[in-house]
């Protein structure tokens, strides 16, 4: 495991030295600057807007960072040939993939936390928001593993659009579900709907912004909902990474 943590730590260090992270921090800064401007609204309107704005910005920036970072985590090492000196050491290929994944999600977690702290969303003030951040974190963890999965056999350019495409389709899980279950659909349409619904990650289930923003809406069996979706995320990530390792194990570098 020492190799995994060393690679993860190095990945975080590399990611934080890249300009892409500045985008995240810039988003946080914009939020901080804009916060006082909403004081003219009634307290409830202000809070709703801030929640909506904050979660939206964090999710969008996270998605962008996850894809840009995830598609290059492994290919950049191959292209720069830094992988030669790593894999010629006693490092198993699965350790390399796992280290890269952990580094990726730790970078994302660091960025989310930094933004949240900058935004002053302390647990006491907004427990719901923390739940939102948690779900964004797991949603983005799936996205990082997806980008890593594609990166072991696709070019970064193709991977960017694949990851983005899967994310968009996966976010629309209610659409794929209605395609699958709709009454006036053909068998083929239902089949495509089922494949998309079950095969692609259901990113949409992690979007709980509306429930957080609007206090009148509530998640039924909230605890079960979180456990199910977090369990789903962990399982999905595990499957993606296992397949990625199987492919990467046979890949020449």
């Amino acid at each position, binding site marked *: 495991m*020492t*190799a995994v*943590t*060393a*690679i993860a*730590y*190095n990945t975080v*260090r*590399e990611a934080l*030295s890249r300009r892409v992270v500045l985008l995240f921090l810039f988003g946080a800064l914009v939020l901080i600057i804009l916060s006082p401007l909403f004081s003219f609204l009634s307290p409830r309107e202000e809070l709703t807007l801030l929640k909506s704005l904050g979660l939206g910005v964090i999710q969008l920036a996270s998605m962008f960072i996850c894809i840009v970072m995830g598609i290059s985590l492994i290919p950049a090492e191959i292209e*720069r*040939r*830094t*992988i*030669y*000196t*790593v*894999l*010629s*050491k*006693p*490092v*198993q290929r699965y350790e390399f993939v796992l280290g890269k994944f952990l580094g990726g999600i730790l970078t994302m977690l660091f960025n989310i936390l930094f933004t949240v702290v900058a935004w002053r969303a302390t647990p006491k003030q907004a427990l719901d928001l923390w739940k939102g951040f948690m779900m964004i974190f797991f949603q983005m963890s799936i996205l990082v593993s997806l980008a890593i999965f594609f990166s072991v056999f696709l070019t970064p350019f193709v991977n960017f659009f694949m990851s983005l495409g899967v994310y968009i389709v996966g976010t629309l899980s209610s659409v794929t579900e209605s395609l699958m279950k709709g009454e006036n659909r053909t068998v083929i349409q239902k089949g495509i709907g089922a494949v998309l619904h079950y095969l692609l990650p259901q990113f949409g289930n992690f979007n709980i912004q509306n429930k957080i923003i609007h206090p009148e809406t509530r998640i039924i069996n909230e605890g079960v909902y979180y456990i199910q979706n977090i369990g789903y995320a962990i399982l999905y990530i595990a499957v993606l990474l296992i397949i990625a390792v199987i492919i990467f194990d*046979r890949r*020449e*570098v």
Partner: protein
Amino acid sequence: MARKMESAIKIEGLTKEYLNRTTGKMVRAVDDLHLEVYRGEIFGFLGPNGAGKTTTIKMLLGLIFPTKGDAWIFGKPIGDVGVKRQIAYLPESPYFYEYLTGRQVLDFYARLFGIPASERKKKVDALLDTVGLSRDGDKTLRNYSKGMLQRIGIAQALINDPELLFLDEPTSGLDPMARIEIRDLIIRLKQQGKTVFLSSHQLLEVELICDRVSILNRGKLLKAGKLDELLPSGRVEIVAENVSDDGVIAKIRDAGGIVQRQDGRIVVQQPDDASVNRVVDIIRSANGTIRSLIPQRRTLEELFVSTIEEVEKK
């Protein structure tokens, strides 16, 4: 002696084929390579660009996979992660994480070996000192020159105190002084009992430090053996004075010598050791004075060029 003959690397029929995407044809980068490298020796792995040297090294390290054949390092099949604790690799023109400092990059590689933090610092400091980068250890690698990167590459290769080192062009980009330092370092490694697999274009250096060499071209092994065997000292040059008599010179020529007159001296090229004594006797019996008698060894460069040319002509 028994230790010396123990195998460090054994290669049997190693072959690597690639698909050339331009022509759509399979290309053999390494063709049925058989080779054995013994423990404790410096083995020179020579060949022109594209000969298959780096491909062979990458197969031995498990970075790419052979199409056919087998190879073992310290008796373990290639790709065995355990054996990587005992080996090191310095790639040609090594690239490292440029956002890290020299110290941080060595610390990273030490972590990959699970070296505890207390030892890591000492080890990193010692290695920076060994490669002459103590003063530059806290600079980021993006500020390093090519020579400094090469030095940090050598330092990372020594982080685990390896038994076997694969060095691919280790003196590339270094100035003459640094080359000598690296050459001395390789000799010191051999003295410590390490095995060095050295791929290099610096034939003079290879000739100076290697015990055995092999020459590879277009993936095929053309020659392999000890330098003494590959570079036989057959020809002898004799320089003598006070020999002007045509009869004496005729006798030397009869003994197989090629004679040239130069400023009152004669320079005799004897093609082999066997007739040298006869020529010396002829000169001395004619009251001539032998000024020098020098065995003319072929250089590695000559051997390399002639070996490659011979194959290319075919």
